[in-house]
């Protein structure tokens, strides 16, 4: 527990982070590719027609919910708290889908894989989407929407 932040999960977060990094390492060293979820999802659905082989993208994308389900079954449930209204999900989803395609990546591709590669593009993208997220949530809070 971190003093002042009783709700934080530093140990589980760090351990889960190691698993995520291991997954990305398997993708890099095994298949020679970036484990970028937005790119793989676009490729798996056929929205993108270049990138990883379709079967590979589908297999990776199908693994994500199965891995989460496995942890949920073993741990007796995983806490997931969604916004009370559907609108933040719809508006947020549209922005995330459009933005990750335009910006060539998301938290996994630019964040986990790109930062650890010291890619300049990924450092800029990660700095911008984090800053944008902080400002957006601050504005939501100011506007009484949180």
């Amino acid at each position, binding site marked *: 527990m971190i003093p002042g*932040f009783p*709700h*934080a999960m530093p140990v*589980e*977060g760090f351990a*889960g982070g190691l*698993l*995520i990094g*291991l*997954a*990305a*390492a*398997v993708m*890099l*060293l*095994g*298949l*020679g590719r*970036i*484990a970028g979820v937005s790119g793989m999802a*676009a490729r798996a*659905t056929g*929205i993108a027609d270049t990138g*990883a082989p379709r079967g*590979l993208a589908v297999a*990776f*994308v199908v693994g994500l*919910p*199965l*891995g*989460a*389900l*496995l942890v949920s079954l073993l*741990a007796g449930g995983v806490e*997931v708290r*969604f916004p009370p209204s559907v609108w933040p*999900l*719809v*508006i947020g*989803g*549209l922005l*995330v*889908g459009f*933005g*990750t*395609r335009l*910006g060539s990546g998301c*938290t*996994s591709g630019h*964040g*986990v894989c790109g*930062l650890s590669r010291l890619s300049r593009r990924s450092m*800029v993208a990660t700095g911008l*989407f*984090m800053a*944008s*997220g902080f*400002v*957006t*949530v601050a504005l939501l809070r100011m506007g009484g929407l949180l």
Partner: protein
Amino acid sequence: MKQNLTALAAGLLFGAGLAFSGMADPARVQGFLDLFGNWDPTLAFVMGGAMIPMALAWLVQRRMASPLAVSKFSLPGTVQLDRPLAVGAVLFGMGWGIAGLCPGPAIADLGIAPLAVLPFVGAMFAGMALHRVLTR
């Protein structure tokens, strides 16, 4: 076959890591972005944890002629910073803050809270398709 099984294993590990770390929970992710509210630093620990295997993997990758399961590396080679990168990242950050979800956790949540996450996933694919149509 070997390729697809390797990708499935990577996906399973990734999804398990997201669920175990608390990152499948939109409220926790939004809590990290909420600097002026009840700030939750968990996401920083997740990022820190993920950097360790990946930093090592990049060091190993430099000494490898080819990946283990396929004949060659297929890695992004773009180096220049451009407007689409910046605008895309800013739009993505806005959506991330509004919903508390990015693509990995959203798809992982299909395994544990499918009905709750479906509106986000549907809208996300619609946004991706819209980008494809506009940039054709």
